[in-house]
């Protein structure tokens, strides 16, 4: 292979690369609006997946003796959907939303208070004896 041939081939490869880059740019322009719409979802999805991993490692570290209190605590904190209920009740003028929001707040509050209280009762029994 002589130097001229090599140079020609290099030029061809470079041109091809430029074409590909241009195609990618066009594709990106085309996708941008979609990506914009998907962005909040992807952001939440990222957080969701990370939280799954955190949950996985933290929960494996829970001692089996405390699996019942674990259910109590997770039950209480899953009622954090009360946040959604509060927003619906407080931010909207819709009567339907206010009624549904009120019911949801009430149900979730039973859980929040009940869950934390019953867990507290259970954990109080696991004090070091003697």
């Amino acid at each position, binding site marked *: 292979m002589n130097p001229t041939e090599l140079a020609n081939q290099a030029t061809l490869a470079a041109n091809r690369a430029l074409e590909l880059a241009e195609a990618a740019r066009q594709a990106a322009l085309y996708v941008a609006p979609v990506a914009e719409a998907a962005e909040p979802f992807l952001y939440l999805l990222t957080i969701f997946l990370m939280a799954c991993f955190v949950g996985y490692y933290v929960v494996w570290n829970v001692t089996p003796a405390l*699996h019942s209190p674990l259910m109590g605590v*997770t039950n*209480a*904190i899953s009622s954090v959907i009360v946040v959604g209920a509060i927003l619906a009740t407080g931010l909207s003028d819709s009567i339907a939303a206010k009624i549904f929001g009120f019911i949801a707040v009430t149900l*979730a509050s039973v*859980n929040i208070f009940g869950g934390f209280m019953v867990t507290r009762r259970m954990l109080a029994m696991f004090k070091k*004896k003697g």
Partner: protein
Amino acid sequence: MGATVSTLAYLVSSVLFILALRGLSHPETSRQGNLFGMVGMGIAILATLLRPGMGGGGIAIVLAGLAIGGTIGTVVAGRIQMTALPQLVAAFHSLVGMAAVFVAAAAFYAPASFGIGTPGHIHAGSLVEMSLGLAIGAVTFSGSVIAFAKLDGRMSGAPILFPNQHKLNLALGILMLVLIIAFVATGNSLLFWLIALLAFVLGFLLIIPIGGADMPVVVSMLNSYSGWAAAGIGFTVGNILLVVTGALVGASGAILSYIMCKGMNRSIINVLLGGFGTTGGGEAGPGAGNGDRAPVKAGSPEDAAYIMKNSQKIIIVPGYGMAVAQAQQVLREMGDLLKKEGVEVSYAIHPVAGRMPGHMNVLLAEANVPYDEVKELEEINPEFAEADVAFVIGANDVTNPAAKTDKSSAIYGMPILDVERAKTVFFIKRGMASGYAGVDNELFFRPNTMMLFGDAKKVTQEIVQALQR
């Protein structure tokens, strides 16, 4: 309070919730963990109430809901007996599910509050998330109601089976998918409620074939569902705290389900298909063993007391029968008396003992048994060989050696507590009936086994009296 500040507050809450779970890695840090959880919840609620645009009327409604629900929750949690814990947890799960349904409904009728569109014109992506949160929430609700009824004895714990059950569930599942697609395409309110209705029916149908002793798996699974429902709602309303918490709870319930299944050597599918332990297992009177076996040796509480008094090491194996008989207090008295005689006493807990994960540990803790005397399966199994007495109270299948030897047995492969290695085995049982799995326990017929027939609490009380003499 601006949007950035409330997002920061939600972040703090998320971290506090993670720390709440982290605290449960040891009994000594657990109470602080629970406190973190409460503070996290308080911050989340306060930050939401202080968001701009919150109307005074709305805040009043929210405070009323918090007061009513909070009072009910506090009273119920304060009064509940620890033996009734599994049904309480199931009832609480049903409330989370129902709350998720109502939040989804509120978001559907007031989408502008969450910036996901206007009524009738909600973004398609949000409709997908909303229908998932709605469906999972509704399944969690009706499934938990059935689990509650079974655990509370309002409904027989026996599996309810009918022909083509699984085909029906599959068909309903496909119908659900079709409804969700139609809902996302049209945003129709009738379809919204149809999805909720169908999900209620599905939750009901999914749990009725599952038997009473499989409830630890069911309760854990519904725990997981309540988390996924919260996450679904979190995606709908675009809130990071709901998404993080939902993921934490979902992962936690899934891990507990896995641990419970492993404790029975059964797949989650096998548990969910249900109908386990419905064959065989007829009731038989004391001493009515199979004809070709040696008769069982029945003893008196006095005999048991005498033998235990002269032992060096005793391992107590409690099961659901102890919880039913409420025998934990008197069991601890027996343990105390034996310790005074210089006997080493410890407790062995099988992962699936009781009706929810960790059920036995809570009952023993309630009876003031020090938690370091209570040991898990892997930890205690090597110790049975050195034990003079294995005292099995209200447990059966989890001690059955057939799980190791008999490949045809329904419980083959299940990890068991090696009580057979102890010099003497006591079984406190009402009769000779087989356990939940419907499998005979050959241990009953061994020469070194002594059966103590009667109610677990009464027999233990008689042993305590004999020890005091």
